[in-house]
């Protein structure tokens, strides 16, 4: 076994080196993951909140959303968005696969975030909600000023895991023609026959990306910590 790291300096035949290509692939991975994360947190928080409201229709909608997106395998969802739904609604074929994959990955993760946000809100003593309402706050105001500030602090640790997962899950985007890291790895190892070097480099980049998110979330967790709250006394 000999190493050949110079493989990254070879020309791909398209006027750039494999290193250039890998950096651009990393960019795609991060773009897919971060945009999907925005979608996931927005949709997931909304659904999680709906599931704790007193209105049974809103609860039902939130539950249906969560169960739909978390009971279908991610890869199947991606294919549904890419092949099946545009087959029914022809207009969707013009939508770039990048947008499709951001929403597919975002909605898949939103189901998991919805579950965590719901758990966060439910972990608060019921008295807090009643106290808010008794003070004359409307229901949205109770959520905004009483419940959510506490609930979101509680769910930061599981949200960190979800944010790291989304980086790793973004690898399925290769299936719908996004030139991200996994596709780069599959393609470049075939072209160069130096699979071990390529996979090691790609593994490193995935690790760095997920670990950076982990550190960023840890920082956020530290900054928003409320002394006296759960885990806040440290």
């Amino acid at each position: 076994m000999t190493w050949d790291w110079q493989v990254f300096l070879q020309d791909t035949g398209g006027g750039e080196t494999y290193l250039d290509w890998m950096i651009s692939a990393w960019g795609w991975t991060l773009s897919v993951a971060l945009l999907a994360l925005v979608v996931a947190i927005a949709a997931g928080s909304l659904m999680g909140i709906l599931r704790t409201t007193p209105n049974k229709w809103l609860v039902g909608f939130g539950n249906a959303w969560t169960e739909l997106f978390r009971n279908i395998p991610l890869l199947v969802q991606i294919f549904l968005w890419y092949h099946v739904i545009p087959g029914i609604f022809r207009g969707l074929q013009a939508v770039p696969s990048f947008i499709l994959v951001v929403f597919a990955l975002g909605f898949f993760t939103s189901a998991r975030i919805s579950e965590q946000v719901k758990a966060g809100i439910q972990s608060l003593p019921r008295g807090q909600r009643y106290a808010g309402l008794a003070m004359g706050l409307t229901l949205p105001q109770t959520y905004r000023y009483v419940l959510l500030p506490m609930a979101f602090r509680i769910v930061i640790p599981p949200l960190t895991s979800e944010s790291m997962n989304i980086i790793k899950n973004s690898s399925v985007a290769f299936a719908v023609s996004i030139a991200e890291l996994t596709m780069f790895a599959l393609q470049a190892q075939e072209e160069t026959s130096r699979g071990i070097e390529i996979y090691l480099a790609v593994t490193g980049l995935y690790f760095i990306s997920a670990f950076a998110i982990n550190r960023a979330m840890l920082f956020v967790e530290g900054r928003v910590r409320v002394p006296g709250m759960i885990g806040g006394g440290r």
Partner: protein
Amino acid sequence: MKKLMLVLAAALSVGAAQAQDTLKKMKDSAAVTMGVRESSGALSYTLGDGKYVGFHVEVCQRILADVQKQLGLPKLDIRYQPVTSQNRIPLVQNGTVDIECGSTTNNAARQKDVAFAPTTYVEEVRIAVKANSGINSIAQLAGKKVATTTGTTSVQHLRKHERGANVSFEEVFGKDHADSFLLLESGRADAFVMDGQILAGLISKSKNPADFKIVGEVLSVEPIAIMIRKDDAAFKKAVDASVTGMAKSGELTKLYEKWFMQPIPPANTKVGLPLSEATKAAWSNPNDKPMEEYAKK
């Protein structure tokens, strides 16, 4: 840490050093392991249930029969080991697989790691389009969407061709051949660039084969060969002799006819890809030249 690395390095080098002498290994164990593919067109594929067939699988069975005769073994047990394009070279190098009979392109980069039997099939990279699309050559692909499969050399040819011919088109990638064909079928792509025999096979198995046709110039020529371990002169000599013999006796032509022109299992459809001039040339002058030599012409 250093110790661990040493142990790892030692383990790796043991893996690489063992079983250099395939003939001796076959003689001692009366067994041989053939690397096969799950789905490589008519060259090598599975019928399920651990059965593997195809043009290259049958060529290999003949080769191993010849080797068995040469060794004077009363019985030779052939084990089939499915491989992928990612693991086939490491598996041949470390001795898990003795002879790989799939669809491996013989190129200079791989010749540093493994050896190849004389080329038994020459693949031509072609373009498949919808019959009613009006596309007949690569120049007409400008501004169109072109599909190909991730993890194949076709992507690279396409890129080089795009740069060389100064046409620009949008590439879309399927995750496997069936997926790429779906892109063409559903209209997400206007053309599908891939090895001719894979295109012919996919078209023959599609719902409506008359809807598709293979058009245009040959984008690249790739010698496909049976892969064996490097630096095992005795085994290579035996394999070479067997392949050369089959090429001379017309046996290869007969096998080609059987796998590419006649209905084949499991669906009993025909691939329908006539023997190309390039393949004929490779048989009339058996050689293990890498792809780069073909490109020089």
